[in-house]
């Protein structure tokens, strides 16, 4: 199964039951953006729960309402989550998010894509 989708904030690629979400450059993620990002992710997944690889390397800011939304509504239908980061900025963002929000599935941050995918495969089999 191969599907792709794109909106203002991100590109979604669905391959072999693994969803890649690649955030675009220069967007401040606020609540409205978070709602669109989550809505489109769920549409792409068609109701199936799956591991998600979130490439946040180009993100520079996610505000609190957006973080809270990602932690609640935004974690539906996610089996495991790997953040792809580029230190130091996105390292701080992902560490802060994971340190202040409750996440009920396996989650980790990586600078290497292959490692991230390996983590997702391992934690969902």
């Amino acid at each position: 199964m191969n599907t792709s989708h794109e909106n203002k904030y991100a590109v979604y690629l669905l391959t072999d039951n693994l969803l890649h979400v690649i955030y675009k450059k220069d967007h401040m993620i606020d609540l409205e953006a978070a709602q669109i990002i989550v809505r489109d992710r769920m549409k792409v997944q068609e109701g199936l729960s799956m591991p998600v690889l979130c490439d946040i390397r180009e993100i520079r800011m996610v505000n609190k309402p957006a973080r809270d939304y990602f932690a609640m509504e935004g974690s539906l239908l996610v089996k495991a989550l790997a953040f792809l980061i580029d230190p130091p900025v996105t390292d701080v963002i992902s560490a802060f998010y994971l340190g202040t929000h409750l996440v009920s599935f396996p989650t980790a941050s990586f600078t290497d894509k292959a490692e991230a995918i390996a983590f997702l495969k391992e934690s969902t089999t």
Partner: protein
Amino acid sequence: MLNTDDFNVKRIQQMLMEMARGNFFFSLEPSAKNDNVASLIVMLNMVNEEIRASFVHQGFARAEDTPQYLVQLSFLLNAEGIIEMANQKTSSLLSRLPKDLIGTHITELLTKGSRKIWQKKQQQLLKKEYSDTKIPLELTTGEGLIIRKEFNVTCFQDLDGTHQKILMDTVLFSKSEPFGKGLWKQALKVSKDTRSPKVRLSQKDIRMIRGVHDMIINNLDNDLPKLKDLALQMGTNEFKLKYGFKQLYGTSVFKFLTQERLRKAKTLTLHTSLSLKTIAHMTGFKSIPHFSRAFKEKYGSPPSSLRK
């Protein structure tokens, strides 16, 4: 000079100083770079947001203990957007002299992103004789900090009906000054509906109640044990759990469970094609009628109406 490390470090110091004074409504413009200073700015903004949220939360949940001080920011603009009046607090918060504010175009105080929003909204506002709306805007202070807040913006005709004016204002919370005496004290005192808390919570109790909160969030599809059993399981008593939870989260344990289940169900109903039966099951409702009833009670219409 702009965006050099020296400049950014100064802004970070300024922001920390404001936080130390109890002003959590400022923020810093995030840098487009990916370096250590940029990561510090991001972190500081997020820490500040978390403190601000917990402070307002406490303010409402335990208002009698939290000295709150309201700061009002107000501008009166003419139809072109030139500032005709700004209250004194506004000029001190923005670290600008009143004479520098009066006669200035409002967009000069806004960040680049907000400028666009303002220009678009201003035209819409002035089309009508009277209009009232809310616009989220970012104001920059003289020291380069940002105040991000939703402003009430009202457009009206002056008395002789010849000119249009715009009033924009917002209220910020600060912890820096205690309750005043007299009128202000009365105005800010939360009365009638709030009673003194029934239980005094220790740090350990608060941790325990947060644990219950997290447990509910993680197990929305499961039924909760009886409150008494849940309390025993958490090593406390029913009384403390019941009133402590309400004190921290403003609602009862079971209402909170239903509220979170419905929130999850609403998102699934809106954005997936899963059947309502599956969604009801996933979110812990016993049957579709039960789910529909609870949903309608909260959102005003049954879940099926979101699918049409």
